[in-house]
């Protein structure tokens, strides 16, 4: 027996069914656009919205009515932000300082990391390029005789030579290119879930940073143990001091991040059933 068709009204009801979780998500995005509202403020306002929603539902209103009324009661995001700024104008800077310090630390780490990566490339990849003619010169010698193609040495200098910053420049640009790609594909926020892991709590962030600095110091000590003290080289103590001083910059940034880290509830947001 063929299935009886659904009543048109039921179909329409189903199609226009109000998704309260999506509505809350939209509202949350509107709040996030207000720089004056910290993550803790937004969390608190959302808790309030949910309390109001639950109460209105208990009074017999449907999902959509309850949400619209609860939202109206909490207030327009722009007006809320204005009130919060009026109450504490300095507050807006707290989160800005936090993110500025976090970005500066990231740039610092990337800059040092890319220098290290560049040095590794120069040590291990460059000799391979110099040895493999086919890699660079796919053309026969007679073509190379008439055409001004770059030689292996030219290419080596272009890519890894001390005067050339081409490779290093591209390495430094990699994060920008990566972020641009993620932005264009709308995957930026999802790709930074690791940041939530690092900034889970102040204690956790300080612990991770402490381990990182310890490894860094061990690396410096290990390098010094292998260091050959020749006549023209600076003494190991001077190198140790210089390296320890270079740690001051990231250590200061870590302290600033920990100090200005927003305290917030990390529990996943509840879903309305």
């Amino acid at each position, binding site marked *: 027996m063929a299935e009886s068709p659904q009543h048109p009204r039921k179909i329409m009801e189903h199609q226009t069914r109000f998704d309260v979780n999506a509505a809350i998500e939209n509202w949350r995005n509107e709040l996030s656009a207000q720089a004056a509202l910290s993550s803790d*403020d937004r969390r608190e*306002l959302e808790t309030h919205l*949910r309390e109001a929603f639950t109460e209105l539902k208990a009074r017999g209103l449907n999902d959509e009515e309850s949400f619209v009324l609860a939202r109206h009661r*909490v*207030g327009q995001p722009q007006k*809320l932000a204005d*009130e*919060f700024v009026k*109450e*504490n104008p300095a507050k807006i800077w707290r989160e800005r300082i936090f993110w500025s310090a976090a970005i500066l630390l990231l740039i610092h780490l990337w800059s040092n990391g890319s220098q290290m990566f560049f040095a590794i490339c120069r040590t291990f990849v460059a000799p391979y390029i110099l040895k493999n003619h086919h890699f660079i010169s796919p053309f026969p010698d007679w073509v190379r005789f008439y055409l001004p193609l770059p030689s292996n040495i030219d290419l080596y200098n272009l890519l890894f030579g001390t005067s050339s910053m081409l490779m290093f420049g591209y390495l430094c640009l990699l994060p920008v290119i990566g972020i641009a790609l993620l932005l264009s594909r709308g995957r930026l926020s999802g790709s930074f879930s690791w940041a939530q892991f690092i900034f889970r709590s102040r204690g956790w962030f300080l612990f991770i940073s402490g381990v990182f600095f310890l490894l860094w110091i061990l690396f410096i000590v290990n390098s010094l143990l292998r260091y050959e003290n020749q006549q023209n080289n600076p003494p190991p103590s001077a190198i140790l001091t210089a390296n320890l001083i270079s740690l001051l910059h990231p250590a200061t940034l870590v302290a600033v991040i920990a100090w200005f880290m927003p305290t917030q509830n990390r529990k996943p947001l509840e879903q309305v059933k």
Partner: protein
Amino acid sequence: MLAKDLVAASSRPLVLSILAKGESYGYEILQKVRELSGGHIEWSDGMLYPVLHRLEREKLIESEWKEAESGRERKYYFLSSKGKKTLAAEREQWLKVHNTLAKLWNIKPALT
């Protein structure tokens, strides 16, 4: 409905007085104010939080995120020792205003 200025001025002693009876969260504070005033004092929901945050910055109240029995997490506020002293001082001032007005309007001042 009360005048806007009076609502704003009374928000501080009202919040402190509610918290003097025990810890509470934003939504509950609003409900209590509505209930106690018989609906005459109507605060805009979202505007309560800047008041709470200002009181917290002045160290009159403290806050803590806690999980309620329902499983929902709420930011609970409670009165600090400085808040108790401030409330006592504010109470004195409000009573003086109340008693003065009561005399002027020939109402028996019931509060002391």
